[in-house]
């Protein structure tokens, strides 16, 4: 039997505000434990929360960028549960009246284009972090992250595969980056995914029993966890069993997910309106002002690349999927002044190859976009050959040096001196009389071999067009 996987994603994104959601402590990451804390975010007796207005602004921005309806009236609620990383033993979140509702995003893939519904976006506070590193085996808590603002973006169960989930999550990431709502630093945990997943026989309209996997913090983990859990559920059904509603834990190291707690053990969060805060009331003008401030979003930008710059749709999609990439690309195009397609070819070829090799992204590029433009200009004016330029580019990604300096340091200046080249080519022809004869007898591909030998002789520095011309003349 064929099965269909049904997936809904809850994405938590830390907002890029300077201060926490309910107090003035900094949200900076990576400092000494428990140094960004105050009576409010430590939940000391008598301390009260005050809502950071920037949080509302950022959440509304995210909502508008994902086609949500912004609620003029929303409120905050307490979600009650005990855990050492939660200082008040309740999380201030939003329950039945979130800030944003009923949005959607379109994703594109081999399956074509698909619209994914967004149920809601709400604001809430992050918890602290447990540290299990103490030598005596005890657990310590760092509350620096406690009270950092989050938005939770809840999708409809519209996703049908790990691939769709990844595309959707990447799109959310791109939008949050474009709007500068979140810096989406995944290695710092500022973007995390919870997966709700069930399977059902293809053609069946009733949803199967779902499980939840929490806190996946990379796209790879997201894809692997979905594939693993989908496979597991199908196996359970195939062997005549039943999927149990539960929360499961994904382990990146073992590549397996295991049961964490059952439905019976699930918390009753006893949500109720937070009496320490007043409801959030937003005027229409406020919402419209934020709508006007929205930057150009990935879809629109990709469309512009295709329509104005003639980029293939696929390339435009890849480049705009990450804001830093798109910004880099546009700066490069501007500085280069030539055909944007030349730039996109380099990005899609050489840059992506390096990203894959290094596991890097656009934010890791160690040189400014203008360097890449300079390199392309050096190719255009014949200073370096295309193949030499690729070597320069690779080196530039290592050292961040200027391309001109690299060309000199690596001795890759292209030989465009006709006299010098003629001498070298004559030598090459002497060494390869058979090929010379073949060409003259009509085997045209022998020319390619002789060009190649000349390039080899010059360590790739010869101007290939010039070599071609001289060879043809001599032959």
């Amino acid at each position, binding site marked *: 039997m064929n099965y269909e996987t049904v997936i809904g994603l809850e994405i938590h994104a830390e907002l890029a505000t300077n201060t926490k959601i309910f107090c003035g402590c900094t949200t900076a990451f990576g400092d000494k434990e428990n140094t960004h804390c105050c009576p409010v975010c430590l939940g000391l007796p008598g301390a009260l929360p005050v809502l950071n207005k920037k949080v509302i602004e950022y959440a509304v921005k995210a909502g508008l960028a994902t086609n949500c309806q912004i609620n003029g009236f929303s409120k905050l609620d307490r979600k009650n549960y005990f855990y050492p990383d939660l*200082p008040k033993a309740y999380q201030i979140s939003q329950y039945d009246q979130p800030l944003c509702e009923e949005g959607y995003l379109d994703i594109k893939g081999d399956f074509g284009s698909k619209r994914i519904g967004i149920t809601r976006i709400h604001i809430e506070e992050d918890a602290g972090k447990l540290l299990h590193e103490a030598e005596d085996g005890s657990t310590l808590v760092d509350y620096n992250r406690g009270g950092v603002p989050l938005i939770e973006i809840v999708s409809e169960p519209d996703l049908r595969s790990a691939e769709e989930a990844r595309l959707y999550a990447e799109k959310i990431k791109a939008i949050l980056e474009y709007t500068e709502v979140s810096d989406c630093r995944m290695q710092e945990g500022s973007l995390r995914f919870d997966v709700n997943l069930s399977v059902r026989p293809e053609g069946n309209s009733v949803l199967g029993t779902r499980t939840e996997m929490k806190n996946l913090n990379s796209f790879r983990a997201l894809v692997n966890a979905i594939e693993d859990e989908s496979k597991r559920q199908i196996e359970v059904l195939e062997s005549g069993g039943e999927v149990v509603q539960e929360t499961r834990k994904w382990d990146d190291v073992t590549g397996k997910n295991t049961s964490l707690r059952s439905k019976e053990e699930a918390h009753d969060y006893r949500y109720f309106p937070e009496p320490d805060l007043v409801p959030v009331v937003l005027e229409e003008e406020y919402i419209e002002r934020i709508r006007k401030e929205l930057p150009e979003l990935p879809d629109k930008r990709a469309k512009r690349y295709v329509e104005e710059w003639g980029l293939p749709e696929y390339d435009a999609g890849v480049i705009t999927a990450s804001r830093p990439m798109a910004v880099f690309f546009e700066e490069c195009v501007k500085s280069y002044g030539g055909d944007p397609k030349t730039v996109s070819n380099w990005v899609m070829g050489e840059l992506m190859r390096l990203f894959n090799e290094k596991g890097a992204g656009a934010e890791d590029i160690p040189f400014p976009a203008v360097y890449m433009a300079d390199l392309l200009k050096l190719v255009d004016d014949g200073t370096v050959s295309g193949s030499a330029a690729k070597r320069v580019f690779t080196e530039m990604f290592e050292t961040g040096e200027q391309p001109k300096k690299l060309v000199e340091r690596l001795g890759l200046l292209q030989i465009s001196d006709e006299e010098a080249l003629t001498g070298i080519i004559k030598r090459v022809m002497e060494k390869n009389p058979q090929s010379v004869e073949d060409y003259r007898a009509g085997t045209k591909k022998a020319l390619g071999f002789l060009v190649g030998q000349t390039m080899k002789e010059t360590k790739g520095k010869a101007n290939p067009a010039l070599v071609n011309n001289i060879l043809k003349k001599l032959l």
Partner: protein
Amino acid sequence: MYHYMTVSELAQRIKKREVSAEETTRSFIERIEELDEKVGAYITVEKDRALKTARDIDKKLKQGCELSPLAGIPMALKDNICTENIRTTCASKTLEDFVPPYSADVYERLEKAGCITLGKTNMDEFAMGSSTESSAFKVTRNPWDDSSIPGDSSGGSAAAVAAGMAAFALGTDTGGSIRQPAALCGVVGMKPTYGRVSRYGVVAYASSLDQVGPITRDVKDCALVLNHICGHDRRDSTSMVVAAPDFQAGLEEGIRGMRIGIPSEYFGKGIEQGVRDRVTEAIGVLEDLGAECEEVSLPHTIYALSAYYIISSAEASSNMARYDGIRYGYRAKDYSDLLDMYIKTRSEGFGAEVKRRIMLGTYALSSGNYDAYYKKAQKVRTLIKADFDSVFEDYDLIVCPTSSLVVIRSGEKTNDPLQKILPNVNTVPANIAGLPALSVPCGFLGNLPVGMQFIGKPFAESTLLRAAYAYQQNTGFHKMHPQV
């Protein structure tokens, strides 16, 4: 000799330097040392700190600094008001050794005004209780009769003022916890409008009902202290941005033509006959002074106590959750794992009344019960507010008994928690509706004082104070003191 002076009288003398702040403070400290073993009003007495602060005030006075009218006045604070570097216990084992690293807004304001903090007063544990007997540390006696309770839950603050062990005190009022003990101890107590005084740094019992307020000897002092504790505080989102008038300014304008509603529901079953009599006599005084008193109806009053019990317990169950032994406060000694630590810490740290309310509130908020309890109680809340709104369309304020009972013996009825909060039947509605309310002494039943309550429109504290002041100008009950 200064013990029974009003804040206004003391302030005059200190200002004229007829007496120093240090002498005043020392005299109150001596009084505490002499009497508090019997009364049990204080949990913590800050003798050295108080005397040092008093000397600083005296120095400033000598230098001719212009100081606030409260400079050098010795006060007591309920022990759920955070005081930086002074232990703040909430009368709970859970916070027995808790020294807050920060101060409540009200404390900051009074410190800035130059008040001398004598100490922190006893209360029901986390302000939950109806007799100040649920304190983990001690029982507070009513200074008028040591076999009687001082009322809930700011009993220590009211007893301290009544026994001359503080010139004034601050209490907190969630369902009557300022007005109730003020009535039973024969002093003035006010719960301001919700949002008038900042709750920042005041340990929460039920966040949507809690409000800080003054306990004083007379109405003029009440206005004076209110002047110094109210005002917008951006650290409390429920603190309202409203103009704070000088509450002493209009005190003497009288009440001629003032329209006063007398709600029949507040005089009905459950109200002790003697209380009814004293308050009726007091209403006669108000009429003599020119007020127009008419019977009105607040028909949903009978549901107020139930709604209060559900809402306050629900919020309390969540507010008490942070006392888990992880970051501060009491932690059990031996435990096997995290859950065991939570259970032992909270079982050992909290007393019976707090546990009861946590359980009740948890139940009321649980899935399946939420609509039947919490949501319904919120609907009742809306109805009670609407009752008041409609009466206040025609009347300036409402007058009724404060505590329905006066003779409540220590240790009485401790096994029937619901019976215990019945005396609060008349105080709870003002909390539910967020309205300002004030209790003044209006006579005696035997040797015990009886309190009369004024309830006003939101932010109409001035009206309440004016009416209560007029009453006190024509009666002498507030000038009577217990023989401790």
